[in-house]
């Protein structure tokens, strides 16, 4: 019973963090929300995976947050690039997130009926994350935000996939992919800000 309550709290936390990442423009707040999001995802993952495997995902996620944070912190003179997507108001993204929440509420019981045993909170958390990630990818072209969108989408997938696949190899590979996405995102953020290295690279 208590486990279920905590699971639903984790779902609530996911809704709050994904909305924050989507709406808030401050990168520090977004990365903080991402760290919390990984904590909630960790709880949902451990509904089906052993604690140690869940911890691997959590640690990998936090390492990604640290890598992105350190990179962004080093970019002091980064020009603020306005997203070209229209409309870009906070209300618009909030409405999009509302639509994702509605879709989640509608589809969760149906998925539970089709695939029994996953658990309602796990399905709801997973779909919220995937939906928020996809929405994020759709409304931004900013590199940090694209990375956040991909990581959010991937976290949702991991929550759902943990319920059907418990292989250590898959968990390891997914952790590597999370780290790889974080590092790729960091690399793309700093690319172009460093001077030309050698003539041969022209």
């Amino acid at each position, binding site marked *: 019973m208590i486990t279920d309550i905590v699971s639903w709290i984790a779902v609530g936390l996911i809704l709050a963090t994904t909305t924050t990442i989507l709406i808030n423009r401050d990168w520090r707040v977004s990365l903080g929300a991402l760290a919390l999001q990984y904590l909630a995802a960790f709880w949902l993952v451990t509904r089906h995976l052993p604690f140690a495997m869940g911890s691997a995902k959590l640690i990998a996620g936090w390492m990604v947050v640290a890598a992105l944070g350190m990179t962004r912190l080093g970019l002091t003179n980064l020009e603020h690039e306005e997203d070209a997507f229209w409309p870009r108001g906070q209300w618009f993204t909030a409405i999009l997130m509302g639509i994702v929440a509605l879709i989640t509420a509608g589809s969760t019981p149906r998925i539970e009926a089709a695939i029994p045993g996953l658990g309602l909170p796990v399905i709801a958390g997973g779909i919220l994350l995937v939906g928020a990630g996809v929405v994020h990818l759709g409304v931004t072209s900013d590199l940090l935000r694209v990375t956040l969108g991909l990581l959010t989408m991937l976290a949702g997938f991991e929550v759902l996939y943990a319920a059907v*696949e418990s292989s250590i190899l898959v968990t390891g590979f997914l952790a590597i992919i999370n780290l790889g996405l974080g590092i790729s995102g960091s690399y793309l953020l700093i690319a172009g800000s460093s001077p*030309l290295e050698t003539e041969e690279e022209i």
Partner: protein
Amino acid sequence: MSAPILWIAIPFIMGVFILFFLRERFSALIGGVTAGILALAALVFPIDTALLLGLISLKIAPSIQFFGRSFELNTADGPLLAIVYGLSALWFLGTEASGTSNRFASLGLMIIALLTASIAVEPFLYAALLLEMAAMLAIPLLVPPYQKPGRGAVRFLIYQTLAMPFILFSGWMLAGVEASPGDLSTTTQAGTMLGLGFAFLLAVFPLYNWIPMLMEESSPYVTGFLLWALPTFTVIFALGFLDRYAWLRTSSQLSNAIQFAGVLMVASGGIFASLQRHIGRILGYAAIAETGLLILVMGLRSSEIVTITFLTLIPRGLELTIWALALSIIKRKAYSLRFNELQGLARSYPVAVAALILAHLSMTGFPLLAGFPPRLAIWQALAGQSLVTSFWVFFGMLGLLVAAIRTLAVFVMANEDKKWSVNESWVQVTMLGLGVIGLFILGIFPQALHPLLANLPSLFEHLVP
């Protein structure tokens, strides 16, 4: 020694070693030689067969356990490994001639190792994870440290990442479909998921917009390498799906859908190529059309699917290598690669221009060139099934031919008093010359490929009757 260590771990470690410890000028050579040796080893040493060398008995074990799962390369994988590493050696040895960043050989070797792991991993479904890792490794190649990332690289990363969840979920659902084949709803869902996953991976229409973008914003040689490597292994992965799941092989709706996607790519790729004014983008659209052909072959209701696929894959690797190398050489002179900067370049870069045009013509299926025999086989199989499909494929190829003629016209558009001169270096001339000879050999004597192709169908035993 086991095969996965030899053809996956060693090249990956070599890639890391070259990246961090080797002087830049040697990296391409060492990378190329490593790939060449691995290709030769795949040809000479059969996997899982004892060989007596003097007093020493040598046997390469086929599999290795890793975190409870196995990586397996069997005897039938030998020719495939030889093809893949042989073509990779060509790409890496061309690094110097193309003037590409020296990280190319090291990261390229790591990418090829990961892609090889994708055909070796069991359950084969996990290949989606390895393909994603390979795609992420390509990012530093596509975006040099001094260049701001463009939209193409970001879209490439997004699309490759989106593909993985779809494929992994569809694989899990397909197991359910096999258990209860009558469940139409699960079958439809699994098929849709699988289709979306491969649509992202193979850049099926309209998800291929990142390819021309990348051709404009990144090094043509690096992008060409990715356009060769990723679809090649993805096609092998897709054939694995068709081989494992009976209902995928027998479903006529799925076969039609695959054919439709392939034809759409061939026709749109050809038409868009004919309308471009940027020779890099033309290469991008030609690669799209070629991938479309491979998809089309997978949708054929024929017992020759595997043979035709591999017959298409080998010349494709050679064509893309030559084309991308020639583009890289030309790009040093005309950075934007737009038509207005290329006028008359045939007189100052005759070898590069000739190689580029021949590679282009080969991709259109021009007789005597490497692309002709596989296209002939495709036409033969296709004409018996649907004349409408054949027409659209012809239309796409015609578009590519128009693009080739337009490119040639621009290259030779020079003042009559302009002198002919060869500005390519001897390394560039040698690489391009060997490549062009290869195009003619594969075009005139396609049976030269027979020793490599003979055993490949046994990789997919259910697809071959």
